[in-house]
């Protein structure tokens, strides 16, 4: 296979973004068309790529990015296998729908051209991550998705909250990338390669120092922690909801945040090494704790997008946990199904927000089921998939595989997973009951009306894979399903998740049916365990205060002692010399004479 096809898929969105940027002002109206055109084309090309690849795995190199002879070669190359093509389909499919949805959602926005340029830039960067055959190239695009995410979260940059959220997202990701880079360097140091294939063959051929390996894996995992918003770098994701809702659906639900999981799956051969058991353990626990933590937070949020954001965190936690449990197929399976139903939920929430005149508080909605029946229906399908309604939804199958893996692994993680499933069912029921049932509690919801067709269309399209995405006849075409060994598997996970689902839904129903105000108030959860506050004070008291102190020290000591000391010395010496330069000609004459004599003596003594 030549590099032409993947290269086209990669660079088409970049060309679109550049073209939008270079469009002259009067033609900025063409921006959406350019962007949508490019994304549709990449979807088609991705399908071609998927069809051509099948179950092969090939690596092709497009060209050299940095060429330092045999010292260092960083290439732009593509590792194309079923994983990559499957991910590409997810990205381009959801990308296309989000572009379509945005056409309506952003119709009246002033910065439409900027928005679509950002979307195209994102598609470019995400494609780069998916197709990259080496860590360096992945890191490049890793940073670039960060930028496009920054641009899109900060789309409404005049809003202080959006500006802050964009900054926060970028900086938090930077912290993760810091670790990622160290991990890349450590792996390069140990194996002499940055390509996945090179590293894989190297670690199979030799033993890497276990400590070094564990540290390297955990450092790489830092990148995933940042991008996939795992504890403790999760804080940016809920704030990222300041961005336009389609962006939240595409970037902060379906694709970019899954990039961390995807990356860990790409390097999962490292986790499978016997020496990496500790690292895998840490990863699994990080995922599990994030899942539980985020689900707890979600139960007390009132902003519809925040609830969904925390649920995203929680589901990502599942995936990361699966990666840590060495069940990479399960992780990718869940990534795949989650992408559809979470995109559906986000676009659905976008439609709701749009219909309710930009109202995001669920307590100011209510009775929407009657006002927006079709939107409600698709939203409910998404919810069903998320809370894993058995047998008929995609989420059920993928979540089941993860719980199976956790159960097989044994220990506490399985119970955490089950508990999270219960919480998921509970908070989603709360959301649906409060928003869709009852009577409108505010003006916006009262005057809500069904959204335009172009917004509804993506919802309907997404509802299909949300349902059938988990069935093996569908999913099996796009990805490697986890080995099905139902004969030997215990039924404990299935029973546990059924119990969790039933109890969660009924508890939610009982608590929230017919309420106008939240009957439960747990400020610890509503305030997200005060982690934001903790970080804020850490930044302001730790970093900023230290920075200010150091600033003064810099002025006082270095500038003070250094420069003042230097100039002080100069002043003393100068003062001494000044006495000599009294302007008295005779003194000059005397000194001149002395100089002559001294010089004479020197000249004589030299002979």
């Amino acid at each position, binding site marked *: 296979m030549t590099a032409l096809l993947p290269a086209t898929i990669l660079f088409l969105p970049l060309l679109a973004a550049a073209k939008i940027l270079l469009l002259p002002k009067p033609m900025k109206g063409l921006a959406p068309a350019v962007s949508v055109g490019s994304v549709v084309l990449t979807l088609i090309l991705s399908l071609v790529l998927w069809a051509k690849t099948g179950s092969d795995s090939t690596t092709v190199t497009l060209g050299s990015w940095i060429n330092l002879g045999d010292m260092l070669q960083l290439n732009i190359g593509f590792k194309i296998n079923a994983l990559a093509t499957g991910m590409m389909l997810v990205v381009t499919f959801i990308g296309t729908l989000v572009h379509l949805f945005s056409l309506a959602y952003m119709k009246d926005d002033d910065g439409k051209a900027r928005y679509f340029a950002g979307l195209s830039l994102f598609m470019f960067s995400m494609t780069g991550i998916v197709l990259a055959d080496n860590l360096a190239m992945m890191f490049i695009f890793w*940073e670039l998705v960060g930028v496009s995410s920054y641009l899109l979260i900060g789309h409404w940059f005049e809003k202080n909250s959006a500006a802050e959220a964009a*900054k926060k997202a970028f900086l938090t990701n930077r912290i993760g990338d810091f670790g990622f880079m160290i991990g890349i360097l450590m792996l390069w140091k140990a194996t002499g390669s940055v390509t996945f294939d090179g590293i894989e063959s190297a670690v199979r051929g030799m033993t890497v120092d276990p400590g070094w390996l564990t540290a390297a894996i955990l450092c790489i995992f830092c990148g995933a922690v940042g991008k996939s918003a795992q504890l403790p770098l999760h804080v940016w994701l809920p704030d990222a909801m300041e961005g336009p809702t389609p962006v939240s659906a595409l970037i902060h639900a379906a694709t970019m945040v899954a990039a961390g999981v995807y990356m860990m799956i790409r390097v999962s051969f490292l986790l499978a090494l016997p020496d990496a058991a500790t690292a895998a353990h840490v990863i699994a626990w990080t995922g599990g704790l994030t899942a539980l933590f985020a689900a707890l937070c979600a139960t007390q949020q009132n902003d519809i997008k925040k609830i969904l954001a925390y649920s995203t965190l929680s589901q990502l936690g599942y995936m990361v946990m699966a990666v840590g449990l060495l069940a990479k197929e399960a992780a990718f399976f869940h990534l795949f199904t989650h992408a559809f139903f979470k995109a559906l939920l986000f676009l659905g929430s976008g439609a709701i927000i749009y219909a309710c005149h930009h109202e995001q508080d669920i307590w100011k909605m209510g009775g929407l089921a009657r006002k927006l029946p079709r939107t409600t229906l698709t939203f409910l399908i998404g919810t069903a998939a998320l809370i894993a309604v058995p047998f008929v939804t995609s989420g059920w199958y993928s979540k089941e595989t993860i719980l199976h893996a956790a159960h097989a692994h044994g220990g506490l993680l399985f119970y955490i997973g089950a508990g999270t499933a219960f919480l998921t069912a509970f908070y989603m029921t709360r959301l649906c009951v409060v928003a869709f049932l009852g009577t409108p509690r505010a003006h916006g919801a009262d005057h809500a009306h069904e959204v335009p067709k172009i917004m509804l269309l993506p919802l309907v399209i997404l509802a299909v894979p949300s349902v059938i995405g988990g069935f093996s006849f569908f999913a099996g075409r796009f990805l490697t399903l986890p080995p099905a060994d139902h004969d030997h598997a215990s039924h404990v996970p299935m029973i546990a998740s059924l119990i969790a689902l039933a109890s969660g839904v009924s508890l939610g129903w009982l608590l929230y049916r017919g309420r106008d105000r939240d009957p439960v108030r747990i400020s610890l959860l509503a305030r997200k365990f005060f982690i934001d506050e903790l970080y804020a004070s850490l930044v302001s008291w730790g970093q900023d205060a230290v920075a200010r102190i150091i600033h003064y020290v810099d002025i006082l000591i270095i500038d003070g002692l*250094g420069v003042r000391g230097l100039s002080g010395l100069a002043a003393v010496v100068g003062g001494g010399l000044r006495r000599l330069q009294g302007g008295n000609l005779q003194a000059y004459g005397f000194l001149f004479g002395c100089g002559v004599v001294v010089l004479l003596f020197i000249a004589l003594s030299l002979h």
Partner: protein
Amino acid sequence: MILAALIVIPLLAAVAVAAGAPARLTSLAAAVLNAVLTVAALMAFKTGEVGYQLAATLFTVLPSPDLKLSVGVDGLSLVMVLLTALVSLGAALASPSTVARGSLRLYHASVLLITAGAMGAFVSTDLFFFYAFHELALIPTFLMIGLFGTGDRRTAAWKITIYLGLGSLILLAGLAALFLNLGGTTFDMAKLTVAAQTTPMAAGTQSWIFLTLLIGFGILISLFPFHSWAPQAYACAPTPVAMLHAGVLKKFGLYGLLKVALPLLPLGSQSAWVLNLLLFALLGNILWIGLVTIAQRELDLMLGHSSVMHMGYIFLGIASHHLIGLTGAVLLMFAHGLSIALLFFLNGVIRSAAGTTHFDRFGGLAKQAPRLGLMFGLATFASIGLPGLANFSGELLVFFGAFKNVAAGGTLWLPLATILALWGVVMSAVYGLRAYRSIFMGQPGANPATVPDLTTTGLLTALVFVIPLLLLGFFPNLLLDLVRPALAALHG
């Protein structure tokens, strides 16, 4: 003769401006001509060949010791010439057509003299003129800050004069010691390199001379703790001077380290204690100054500090003593030169329109000045090392290089220093984005300053920097292919 013309044109233009030619037009014409000639030199340069090309001896000053004004470029100096040509073109575009006080002729003539001095320092193949041309560029710099600066310009001018004067003096002492210890018969850099290889000095002598050179060059580059002249000087300097000094003249010290100190003192530069000192200092640059930068509330001071901080990465590349790191350092020098010049240019635009650069006075500027916002964003992203822009490639190579040498008998500190330096990438993102956030995003605070959008000339100026940054971000090999053979020849 192309290279000689590169020096002579700005000199002639300076004389013409002083004599009464239209100031802005003449300096612009000289800058454009120089840029064209630089492109011609790039065309004429044969990539991959070792040694000086386009070499010429203009005149012999002394037959013995061998001292002559001769020019020539290898890949390394050609890159610096290109940088000088680009930044001086930008600076010429950014120079005003009227000045509030003082003489416009003096202003433009000084800018041209700085350009000529920088060009001369980079194309000279003679140690003496290498030094002398840099001094030629420094003097108008001091003058300009004192005469045309803003804010507390007198203090700033005195500080930079004393500091850089002292630095030059120490440098001179180091160079003299180097010259004498290598036989004292020639100033020709190529012959000195040969002499250093055939009759190496004792390791101890080398270490001491290297330390002297490191301090001398270090003061010029604002190596921690000799940095405190830089932020204030840049904050007070007129825009073209800040662009030229931060963009080009500061790189002279690094160029000197790469071209003179490392190849002539191979043992001295690798002796453990000198290396440890260097690592300590460069971490000071990155972490200490990084924190100080975070504390800044004014754009010009922040940029001044950030330019000090970024020198740390280049020093890390030099300290790595590995070809990867050295190549990365050169790429970073080039990229940083362009990005900081662009930032100072935009800072100048904001300052001249608003009269202040304090963050509290701004907000949401991207709304009223979208071009400015875009260019500033690109420059910020470049300087915090985002892929797609040249700085990232340079930083990446520096880190790879510094990490590479862990096993090659390098000191234990090197990997740790690399990791600590990597944290600097996070810090630069913190201050870069904070500045962007406070000035261009969010709601305007009380009493906001208004800044008009970039004019076409302004946009053109910015593009002089942005285009090469993007080009090298996507295709770093363009520059690496030039630099690598030269560095390989210099550092064996």
